[in-house]
């Protein structure tokens, strides 16, 4: 048997936090595309960007890179292509 290891519950919990803050960012982004002068929304966007970066740093430390092409650091050996992929979890 050569079954890849399953991810722990912490993976799902932290990922969910990232999905939540990144979702707010998508919403604010589309809103700002049609409301470019809304200073409050821009401030909230930048605040959420900060939160998102912080959460992703924490996630990547435990579960490996979230992005490729130099947007995330790699461990050794190369762990970008480690399972699971998003559609597998």
């Amino acid at each position, binding site marked *: 048997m050569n079954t890849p290891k399953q991810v722990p519950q912490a993976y799902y919990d932290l990922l969910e936090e990232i999905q939540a803050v990144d979702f707010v960012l998508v919403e604010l982004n589309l*809103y700002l595309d*049609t409301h*470019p*002068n809304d200073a409050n929304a821009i401030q909230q966007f930048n605040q959420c960007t900060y939160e998102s970066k912080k959460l992703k740093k924490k996630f990547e430390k435990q579960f490996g*890179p*979230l*992005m*490729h092409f130099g947007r995330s650091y790699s461990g050794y050996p190369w762990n970008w292509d480690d399972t699971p992929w*998003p*559609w597998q979890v």
Partner: protein
Amino acid sequence: MWYYEKKLQYPVRVRECNPRLAKYLIEQYGGADGELSAALRYLNQRYTIPNKVVGLLNDIGTEEFAHLEMIATMVYKLTKDATPEQMKAAGLATHYANHDNALFYHNSAGNPWTATYIASKGDPIADIYEDIAAEEKARATYQWIINLSDDPELNDSLKFLREREIIHSQRFREAAQILIDEKDQKQFF
């Protein structure tokens, strides 16, 4: 260019191995009003639309790819490890004969995806109104699939996607307004 991020936009869960639901869902994968059509429609229109709405087309087009991945995940999970007998019972024998359990860009009736699903008139008003209609059609398709599905966890993800069509429609309606506003009458730019 684009970067891939190793996460779904929204957590996707399905309750059981159910290839029949996959057969319905493939409509939003390779169908006329599906997510592939949406992504390619908006990203193609952005080259020739006025600057003030390029960003919106770029960003909604990009979000559509995240939705395409969610649909793919649902189809993949609903058919993963399904036996040929289960595929046959779900009306997917003809799919199986050609593709095994692999995904393919076709609609629920088996018609392959075609570029004719994408409108690109080059007229900003015609294109944005096309986009509003496309969002309403995709919203309706999600309704019909939710009506057909008895998987509450799958429906949770489908309700998310339906709500996104509502927001996209809202933004395209605002884009239409931006395009028709008389110069300097609004403070938006």
